[in-house]
């Protein structure tokens, strides 16, 4: 008989595996090390207090308590940690995602271009070079177009969203994971390219799960730390006040497009660029809302109105679940699917600055953020260049050896 519930809730300096943690015991370590097929080995170290320490990799491999993973993340990837670290490095840099910047611009009431100039000045004073991740988004999109044109897989599933990646690896089998795009995300392409020029790299993202992406083994710690827009909001606000920073107009570039109704800038327009790449003159596009606005189907027709393929944009877990069900029952007819775990996409990411719920609902806020992303920008020419390097990553089904759970 199992003893009644013992609740371990207090988390101090050590991560105490919660009752739900599937790797709370040392015996599990032995079990796993004996199995060479499992690559994500837990790194449990007992300290004097006999408390097991769990690394982030362990938590990634586990479907258990998110609390533990979150706690580790906050400890290892915080603003304080960043401010400490940049003092130790000669040549640090930080990349900002357009979605995270839009959130800051809106909340602090600047234009996007002013916001970028402010961040540029702040980081310059701290000897940190600021990059706009739009340029790396272009590489990710061009890589994706190339992959799409060369693959035989249908559907090809966009894998930029680390929330979706974690979910897929933990809960779905290889038959679905094999459909995931191998292209690195803009964050990791930024890391892979700029690590040659900088000894410390950070990013500002609209998403907490990007922290999980950064610590994935195949990413080799290219990105040292990921901060969310929410985490730096107060810091930026305070800095502007005390340092008397004067916003300037700088010319920003963007990959965001919003000229068609079916376009959606919220999550880097992967789908829109994929569609653009297959369109021929005189071809047309029709879109169709399935069940809700976060599940859009787009059909391409040739000049004779014959279907040339169906594509989809799927945001939010409930729609992902329904898409996965389609794939499993082999009723999925899409060629490419842009998948993001957050409803309304990355502009509504979990790391974005929260607007008081009663004053503004996400459904009203997101169109404003989209406007910020588009306005006063020069469109980046995404003309595909053959010499462009391809940045690839990998995904795999994470086996979860479960012991008893209540």
């Amino acid at each position, binding site marked *: 008989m*199992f003893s009644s519930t013992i609740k371990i809730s207090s988390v101090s300096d050590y991560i105490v595996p919660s009752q*739900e943690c599937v790797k709370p015991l040392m015996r599990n370590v032995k079990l796993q090390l004996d199995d060479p097929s499992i690559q994500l080995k837990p790194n449990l170290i007992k300290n004097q207090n006999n408390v097991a320490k769990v690394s982030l990799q362990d938590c990634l491999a586990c479907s258990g308590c998110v609390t533990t993973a979150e706690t580790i993340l906050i400890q290892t990837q915080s603003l304080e940690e960043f401010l400490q670290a940049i003092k130790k490095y000669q040549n640090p840099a930080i990349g900002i995602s357009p979605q995270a910047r839009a959130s800051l611009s809106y909340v602090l009431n600047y234009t996007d271009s002013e916001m970028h100039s402010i961040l540029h000045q702040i980081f310059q004073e701290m000897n940190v070079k600021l990059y706009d991740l739009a340029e790396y988004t272009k590489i990710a999109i061009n890589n994706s177009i190339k992959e799409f044109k060369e693959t035989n897989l249908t559907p090809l599933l966009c894998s930029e969203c680390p929330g979706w990646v974690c979910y897929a690896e*933990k*809960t779905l089998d290889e038959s679905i994971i094999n459909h995931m795009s191998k292209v690195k995300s803009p964050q990791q392409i930024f890391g892979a390219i700029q690590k040659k020029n900088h000894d410390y790299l950070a990013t500002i993202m609209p998403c907490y799960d990007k922290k999980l992406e950064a610590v994935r083994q195949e990413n080799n710690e290219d990105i040292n730390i990921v901060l969310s827009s929410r985490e730096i909001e107060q810091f930026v606000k305070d800095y502007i006040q005390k340092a008397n920073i004067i916003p300037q107009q700088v010319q920003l570039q963007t990959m965001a497009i919003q000229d068609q109704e079916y376009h959606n800038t919220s999550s880097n327009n992967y789908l829109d660029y994929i569609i653009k790449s297959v369109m021929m003159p005189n071809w047309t596009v029709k879109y169709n809302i399935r069940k809700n606005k976060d599940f859009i189907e787009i059909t391409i027709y040739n000049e004779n109105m014959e279907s040339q393929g169906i594509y989809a944009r799927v945001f939010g877990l*409930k729609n992902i679940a329904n898409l996965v069900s389609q794939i499993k029952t082999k009723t999925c007819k899409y060629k490419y699917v842009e998948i993001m775990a957050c409803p309304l996409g990355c502009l509504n990411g979990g790391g974005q600055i929260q607007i008081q719920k009663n004053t503004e609902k996400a459904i009203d806020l997101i169109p404003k953020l989209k406007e910020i992303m588009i306005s006063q920008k020069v469109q980046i020419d995404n003309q595909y260049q053959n010499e462009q390097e391809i940045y690839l990553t990998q995904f795999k089904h994470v086996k*979860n050896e479960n012991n008893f759970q*209540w």
Partner: protein
Amino acid sequence: MNCQLLKDHKERVWQVAWHPNGQILASCSSDKTIKLWQLMNDQYKLIQTLDECHTKSVRSVSFSKDGQFLASGGFDTVVGVWMYDGSKYKLIQQLEGHESEVKGVAWSADSNYLASCGRDKTVWIWDHEDLEFSCNCVLQAHDEDVKCIKWKDTTLYSGSYDNSVIRYTYGEDDEWDHKQFQIEHQSTIWSIDIFNKLLLTTSADCTAKVFSIQDGTLKPIQTLQGFHKEPIYSGSFSYDGLYFALGSADNKISVFKKDAIDELGYPHYALDQIFKDAFEFDVNCVAFNPKNYLLATCSDDENIKVFNLQL
């Protein structure tokens, strides 16, 4: 006292649930199966073993109010939907989406919605059209493992390892709104049952509480304390609210009977009887029959017992 033993599961039995006709009992177990038992000539006969859905423990089982569907939830993260074809329940769909163990499944009163909850802290609501089930909503309002769910018509209640109860209602803007109740349980809420406007919670703090659902809140009416020395995993009202039963990790089952109604119209329940050593191990679930005073119970000792409180 009349008690029948139903023996066939090979491992701990997690839950028992009655068919709305009161004649069929479903049970689910760590042996990965669901078993259906039918009352024939005062004897329970095993009529079907459903073993083709789950690859791990089946933690929860529930009939829809019209008896057309049976749902099951497993530690394999799968929710199974079974449909009655006139002679048997057949698996029609496996709903995938939960990230880890499913702990509870429940149908809304109109059978339009199926809810499932689990260790990933979420509650999923599924709807169906032409017998095709799809996800309607994923609700993550709890901070911890969601242990139990219970519908009152088309309002859903959930109980969690975070010691709270959350109520979900379908709002005007086509979204599920939720409201959290901190109801002074000191530990995990293991079960919720509802009779009319009375809501019964049982907890790992070894107490059970009765609330009145009124004006959108839960008004505490009675706390049952000192009857069990271990977590109370399950509570169930009889069909008429005259009784409720509690099942605990102390291997005991206690039955309470309504003995008074106070000036505000709230009932008071008093201990009626305790079945000591009802089982050798934890009592995981107690469930009153929807038509009479039969009480189905199940345990870690692999057994199911049906008590008749009228005899």
